[in-house]
């Protein structure tokens, strides 16, 4: 589960990190009120208006702008709210902006030049340990930095039994070239980030940029946090922060009934039991000349009710030209699944696209008989290769 920038920063602040202060609003009028309040509290003259959507690269798409007075706060907020924000991480049509963050300007002039850093904390799969990744090259795309100047990206692994140690905080801060007050502030900042991460079961925290201000304070100017979905049962406050409007409505609907669905851009829908087989089926669709329209794992109980819901979800996508059902029956008996498909088909009425049903495993032959005798316009297969050939024939 992903958090918005404003939620991520609030969470880090709660754990002691300094952040670029801001107020989330949903109208331009509220933006002006928020701006006035921020000026009173922080003394900031200018304000930054930031679109709150779950996608990176917001600045590049015109979703982050500087307002130098209250009139600009209002006009820029009006421009950004309601826009379809297109960034390198969104689809071509972009994402509708419903919320903005009115934030203080933290790049004010002072005794030293402001300097941006990159800080992230995540679980390194290779070692099974949490690791800080950090760089002096803040504010840039870290993948690009890692590719072009790998020596500027450094890692600090954390011992799971001992947790983060003081020497590690100092090491990172020194490696970032800090000294004096900023050095001290950075060690405190890193410790707060670590606590935010561990105490909220985060799978990733990224602060890019982390800023050293002109008066040597270290703070988060942006913040991205992903929470481990498996841990949401013990992170109830965070689970409530989920913004369903940022997710695909069909995926949200699928999630409610326990189906694992991911919308894709292709023309062949698929319904499969098991995540690995589902991905393999998508790959097979491509090899057969189509493109998968979705990922859909119906799980272990492929009964009539679930099959019907799954069909209805797939058929919501107007691009779907055919549907491939691929079930490997183990504990689940294929004849039951076949009956489920027949019942679901009848309940929906007319399904306007060809359906290829591949049932293999326990009682596969009986299943094929049920499909054949149903009289429905359903192509049946047992061997996976046979199913692939039938998809090819349907698309030709």
């Amino acid at each position, binding site marked *: 589960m992903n958090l918005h920038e404003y939620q991520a920063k609030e969470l880090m602040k709660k754990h002691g990190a300094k952040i670029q202060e801001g107020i989330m609003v949903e109208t331009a009028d509220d933006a002006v009120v928020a701006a006035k309040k921020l000026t009173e509290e922080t003394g900031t003259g200018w304000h930054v208006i930031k679109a709150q959507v779950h996608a990176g690269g917001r600045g590049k798409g015109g979703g982050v702008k500087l307002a130098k007075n209250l009139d600009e706060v209002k006009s820029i907020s009006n421009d950004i709210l309601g826009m379809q924000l297109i960034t390198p991480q969104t689809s071509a049509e972009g994402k509708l902006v419903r919320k903005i963050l009115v934030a203080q300007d933290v790049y004010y002039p002072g005794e030293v030049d402001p300097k941006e850093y990159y800080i992230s904390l995540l679980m390194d799969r290779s070692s099974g340990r949490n690791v800080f990744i950090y760089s002096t090259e803040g504010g840039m795309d870290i993948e690009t930095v890692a590719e072009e100047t790998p020596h500027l990206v450094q890692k600090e692994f954390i011992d*799971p039994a001992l947790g983060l140690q003081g020497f590690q905080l100092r090491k990172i801060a020194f490696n970032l070239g800090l000294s004096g007050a900023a050095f001290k502030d950075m060690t405190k900042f890193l410790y707060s980030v670590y606590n935010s991460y561990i105490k909220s079961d985060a799978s990733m925290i990224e602060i890019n940029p982390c800023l050293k201000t002109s008066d040597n304070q270290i703070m988060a100017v942006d913040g991205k946090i992903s929470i481990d979905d498996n841990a949401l049962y013990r992170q109830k406050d965070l689970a409530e922060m989920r913004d369903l409007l940022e997710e695909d409505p069909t995926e949200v609907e699928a999630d409610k009934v326990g189906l694992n669905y991911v919308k894709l851009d292709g023309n062949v829908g698929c319904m499969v039991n*098991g995540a*690995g087989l589902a991905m393999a089926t998508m790959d097979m669709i491509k090899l057969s000349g189509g493109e998968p329209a979705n990922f859909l794992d119906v799980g272990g109980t492929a009964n009539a009710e679930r099959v019907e819901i799954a069909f209805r979800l797939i058929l919501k996508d107007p691009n779907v030209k055919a549907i491939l059902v691929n079930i490997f029956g183990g*504990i689940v008996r294929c004849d039951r699944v076949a009956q489920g498909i027949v019942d679901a088909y009848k309940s929906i009425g007319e399904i306007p696209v060809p359906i290829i049903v591949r049932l293999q*495993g326990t009682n596969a032959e009986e299943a094929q008989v049920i499909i054949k005798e149903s009289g429905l316009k359903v192509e049946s297969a047992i061997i996976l290769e046979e199913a*692939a050939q039938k998809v090819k024939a349907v698309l030709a």
Partner: protein
Amino acid sequence: MAVLVNKDSKVIVQGFTGKEGTFHAGQMIEFGTNVVGGVTPGKGGQKHLDRPVFNTVADAVKETGADVTIIFVPPAFAADAVMEAADAGIGVIITITEGIPVQDMVKVKTYLADKDVRMVGPNCPGVITADGAKVGIMPGFIFKKGNIGIISKSGTLTYEAADQVVKAGLGVTTAIGVGGDPIIGTTPLDAVKLLMEDDETKGIVLIGEIGGDLEVKAARWIKENSTKPVVGFIAGETAPTGRTMGHAGAIVGGAEDTAQAKKAIMRECGIHVVDSPAAIGGKMAEVIK
């Protein structure tokens, strides 16, 4: 001889009296697995499926001499169950539970590091040795006896591969479902090493998916040490970047953990990689001659 589990394994079930534990323990017993008892805290002293229930794994080990455990404990308590089994001296811990928080697994991995124990999973279908023991949730009848070892991150895709291998006239020694989580106990590399040393296994099917670098590590080892043909498949060539595809670990983070990148490295390392999941059995029949 097959690997990890066989007909002499003394198996206990953690989460024995729960719905999942009860159903699958019954299926395992029907298959012929030597299930010697189970653990459900607070129900020690009872009988379940005609076998003794213990309060702790330590009690179960003391009374039955159990050397393998299978865990069906719910996600919130599963990490604890793994550590309990390791502490009691169980040698092979097979964790079926899906949905364990990743930070719990970070701790488990550290806890197990200096112990003489092998964990398989979590979020896996388990391990099955044909004509020996099924310690998992797979449909046993598909895994007909033969000489091919199977390693896979996914459940139904393991069954698919086993079915194809059997239909190709080869059959299975041991199939190891390593699991689809970001942190797993037995990696594809560990599993490859086990099957490479097994005399009965003449060929290996290695099935992976997008995310992480575990298949790549296995491939690099295979390049230097392999004595048997390996057929490989990586699911998820058509999966989009940054989205989790069912398994918590199946997510493309960068250029190196895509299906394409993994397949390219596996091919360089001499693995017979197939692009279609329908071609696994046929390819194995072709290369094992």
